[in-house]
């Protein structure tokens, strides 16, 4: 549709991208020297999470030194972490399966910083570990230990290092870390 040329004016005067004299950055000195208002209020937000049906049984298993998964007879998957439903078939799972406490490193990282960017001298080694007895690709996140960071490889076989019986409390930390098999 033809248009009066007068309306083009606005477009012509604009650079791409159009941006004005806004978005003024503050320097570190200004920021920490009181150029902004800060508050030190600490929100005392507390949460009481229910473990839920599937996770409750999973944690009970961990307390006994066992890794539990669930199976869906529709898609044939054995899943960990366990859930009461299969999200792909969208139906209840068909039962519990005891898995091994061994697995394969799917991927890993050597992490030299904390969440607020403080340096660590010895790296943490988070990994996704595919658990033996579960379907391929079924992993959990945990930490590797008892290993030289230089030696960690994808495909490395690992085994859970459990806390002693009396120290286990039904938590993911009942496994201290995973070490090379």
């Amino acid at each position: 549709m033809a248009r009066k040329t007068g309306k083009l004016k606005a477009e012509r005067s604009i650079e791409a991208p159009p941006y004005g004299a806004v978005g003024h950055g503050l320097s570190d000195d200004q920021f920490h020297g009181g150029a902004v208002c800060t508050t030190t209020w600490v929100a005392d937000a507390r949460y009481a999470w229910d473990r839920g049906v599937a996770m409750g049984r999973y944690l009970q298993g961990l307390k006994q030194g066992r890794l539990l998964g669930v199976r869906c007879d529709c898609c044939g998957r054995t899943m960990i972490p366990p859930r009461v439903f299969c999200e792909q078939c969208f139906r209840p799972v068909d039962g519990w399966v005891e898995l091994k406490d061994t697995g394969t490193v799917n991927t890993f990282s050597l992490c030299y910083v904390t969440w607020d960017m403080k340096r660590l001298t010895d790296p943490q080694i988070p990994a996704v570990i595919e658990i033996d007895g579960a379907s391929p690709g079924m992993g959990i996140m945990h930490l590797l230990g008892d290993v030289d960071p230089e030696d960690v490889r994808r495909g490395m076989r690992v085994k859970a290092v459990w806390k002693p019986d009396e120290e286990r409390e039904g938590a993911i930390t009942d496994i201290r870390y995973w070490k090379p098999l």
Partner: protein
Amino acid sequence: MGNRVAIVGAGMTKFVRRAQETGKELSFQAVKMALQSCGMKMSQIDCVALGTAPDTFDGVHMKGEYLSDGAGCWGKPYMRSYVGGGTGVFAVAQGWYHVASGMFDTCLVVCEEKMSSYQPHPQGAFLTIFDHTTERPLKPNLLWIFALEMNRYMTTYGLRKEDIARVAVKNKNNALLHPAAQIASEVTLDDILKSEVLAWPVQRLDVSPVSDGAVAVVLASESVARRVTDKPVWIEGVGWALDTAYWTNRDLCYPRYVEEAARMAYRMAGVTDPRHQIHVAEPYDPFDYKELHHMEGLMLCGRGEAPQLTADGVTARDGELPVCPSGGLLGVGNPIAAAGLMKIAELFWQLRGEAGKRQIARKAKRGVAQAWGDLMQVGTVVVLGV
């Protein structure tokens, strides 16, 4: 599918590490520039689609409503969406159906983020994405997820670090010509490879920065678009999809959710051969490996082929398929929701031939923008064309 919808105007603030302006002020400026670019007034806007990340960043509950006055929402139907990093592109899809449905003639899409308020580091705001029973007791760090994905990608295709770092070099250098860029620089491959190791294989210069900024675009029905501009940029397709929240069960090497979102958008746009029918791309690049991941998910190349295309210069601004000619999140900056909308704005300027010194060399009639987020499992895709 639905009535035709065009983007007719766009504007953005500079992206900076810490802005003196409040979120409302940043939004106001971006909206003002977007309206000015198409000669429209707020009275001509029928509704507002607002995208902005978690309330936690600002420490303000109902942050969307807090921003609303600056985003032009007063007295108008308003809707806020949030799908994590995927928000900036999703907000356009949200605005699209407001107009495509015939309910409204115009929709203002505004995305704002002010990450600098959160102390000591906004990464803290993300930590609660980890499962509270199975993961948070291990005291995870957000970088872990990205490092684990990047390493999986590298080991699957036998890639070296430099194959990935080339993306950061390209984007940070592309951003030198973007007047709103935060961390444009003439970095070299060597600079990236020698930067501080955060969580191997992720190094400091592989990562986009913490940013403040706002972007706005104006959507219009065909009749309004033809009245206000000679160069409407049509929204040809929108798509979004989710993978499972059990992220350790996902294929960490390939973003299937991006592929599904892309298939939805391409189907709507009539794109059957993305490698040839897409002329310019703005995939989400908060980390350098993610641009490669997302190019593959968008089916712009085969799996594992994106690093070679980058090495060959195909994705350079003067290449056959320019990727992130804006400079992307790695160069322009990453104010979460605003970063995705910046990509839409870049395609708007590129397809109209208005990107100035950043204008890509090849002739482009169709582009794709994509963002990624939620629990690292959402893909959002918009196809634009002229």
